[in-house]
């Protein structure tokens, strides 16, 4: 398959001549005259593999465009072009995620070599990612079997298969069981995450009354919160419309948000689990939905970290009730995938030191 290159330069003759040369090398080429146009072209052409980006341009310059491209399209390679040799700018661009940097006037043969090198590296990285992901997925699936066996064996021991258990043995077995459940749940989450990323997840949707479901969930979390000396408040309306969803997955989302709230709450704080009807915008349409929110009075999230709360492998350093911890927030990344797979939206609002509110809205089926 041909690689597609986006040339972004305010000078038409440069766009033309570069396009001609790259096309002759077998590349598909699209062009843009400034950063704004470049972002529009990237939206229109998801097949773009690499961007040649001028720095000094009207409307939106190359540095601003680079920031947005690397954020929105992290797998696209960017090579910066500038007519004014400024190495401070070059370093800034490389720090912002540009793959390479060329000072104009550019020898086209040199440019073509750099483009091919960047694309080769990208292709190798993608292959490596696929290989890693496939290995990881196989490894996790292999783990599921033994974990399930551990769970069922514990169950059999509890039922007296190996004779009567002392109180101490029952307590220890309960501890092993809870650890095993946690490990099993996390393993399933990681498998789910990779399925979401591959687009191979299948949802088993059925009608659900979220009010009844949340009332049941809150029974469990009231006990957990009490054990942690935290308050637990419910804000439920008398009724909400049914939604069509994969119950197990939505259960995962709610549990993730509540676990997260408990994890980061300050001592004697209160956690609120709420439910409301609402509307939200999607593709320019207003959609009726049901909103679930989980509010805590915990440590909060710094404004600069809010954007990456739902990122995979997002490791944040928090001072939780249990002391300083490093948490890999896999569960929030999965929650986002699940909500979006249901056509919903998830968000977070937070004030550092005062607490956070996580909300997700699921569409009501008309």
């Amino acid at each position, binding site marked *: 398959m041909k690689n597609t290159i986006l040339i972004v330069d*305010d*000078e038409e*003759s*440069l766009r*033309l*001549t*570069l396009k*001609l*040369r790259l096309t*002759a090398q077998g590349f598909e080429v699209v062009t843009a005259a400034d950063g704004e146009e470049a972002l529009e072209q990237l939206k229109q052409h998801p097949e773009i593999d690499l961007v040649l980006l001028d720095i*000094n*341009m*009207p409307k939106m310059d190359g540095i601003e465009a680079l920031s947005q491209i690397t954020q929105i399209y992290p797998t696209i390679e960017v090579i910066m072009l*500038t*007519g*004014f*040799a400024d190495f401070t700018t070059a370093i800034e661009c490389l720090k912002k995620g540009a793959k390479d940097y060329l000072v*104009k*006037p550019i*020898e*086209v043969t040199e440019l073509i070599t750099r483009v091919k090198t960047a694309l080769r590296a990208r292709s190798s990285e993608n292959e490596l990612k696929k290989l890693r992901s496939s290995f990881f997925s196989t490894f996790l699936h292999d783990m599921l079997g033994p974990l399930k066996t551990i769970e069922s064996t514990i169950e059999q021991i509890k039922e007296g298969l190996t004779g009567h258990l002392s109180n101490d043995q029952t307590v220890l077995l309960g501890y092993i069981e809870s650890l095993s459940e946690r490990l099993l749940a996390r393993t399933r989450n990681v498998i789910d995450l990779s399925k979401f990323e591959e687009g191979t997840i299948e949802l088993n949707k059925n009608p659900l009354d979220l009010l009844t479901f949340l009332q049941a969930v809150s029974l469990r979390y009231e006990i957990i919160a009490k054990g942690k000396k935290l308050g637990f408040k419910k804000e439920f309306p008398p009724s909400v419309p049914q939604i069509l969803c994969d119950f197990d997955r939505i259960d995962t989302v709610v549990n993730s948000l509540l676990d997260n709230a408990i994890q980061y709450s300050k001592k004697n704080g209160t956690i609120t689990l709420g439910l409301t009807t609402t509307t939200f915008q999607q593709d320019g349409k207003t959609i009726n939905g049901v909103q679930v929110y989980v509010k805590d009075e915990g440590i909060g999230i710094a404004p600069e970290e809010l954007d990456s709360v739902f990122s995979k492998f997002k490791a944040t350093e928090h001072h939780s009730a249990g002391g300083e911890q490093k948490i890999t927030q896999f569960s929030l990344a999965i929650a986002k995938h699940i909500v979006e797979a249901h056509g919903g939206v998830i968000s977070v609002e937070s004030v550092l030191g005062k607490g956070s509110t996580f909300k997700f809205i699921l569409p009501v089926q008309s």
Partner: protein
Amino acid sequence: MSSLRIASPITYNYQFSLNDGREIFFEIRLDPNTLEFIPSSDFQPPEWTKIDFYPCEGCPLLDKVQRCPVAVNLSRIIEPFKHTVSHTPAVVKVETESRVYSKETTVQNGLSSIIGICMVTSNCPVMDELRPLTRYHLPFATPEETLFRVASYYLLRQFFIAKDGGTPDWNLSGLIEIYKKISAVNVGISRRISQASESDANVNAVIILHSYGESIPFFVENELDEIRYLFEQFLKDRK
């Protein structure tokens, strides 16, 4: 002497009207016989015009002159634009003896046009190869117009060589060689100008010329296919 030739200097008057209100004028005067740039007398060239300051790769004048003739010519032009951003909008008007051209463009495009004349009329042996083209200078030429003009010029040159009993280069391989050398001059000159400017308008003007120049060998290697369509009606019977 040809009856078509003019006796007085050939002039190109460039007027830049920038959107920040600045009006900048240049009068380019060329000797009608040699097409050499006629400099104004009261001019002290700056340091960056010295021949050994970022010299071009393969410079044929390195040990022969004190100052780079291309840089000396350009230094008269680039000073007013050394703080100007390349994409600053401008209306550029060019007056010749025969007509007036005007274009709403950017500073870098207008400068590219004027810098092109200054480079090939400077007595640099590399750039001199294109000097006859300045007699019929076409401001704001597109890549296709440039290709047509350059190929036509070079083929006309071969016609005269053949008429004089020489060996003409009908496959245009000499043109590729000329542009390879010109490419080295464009790179060298852009390095010099980078040192003399605090913004990118001047450098980008040379970069535009360089990009045109880099395309010519490519077009020639592809047998001028890009402009062949203009001649199809004369080629039909020969297929």
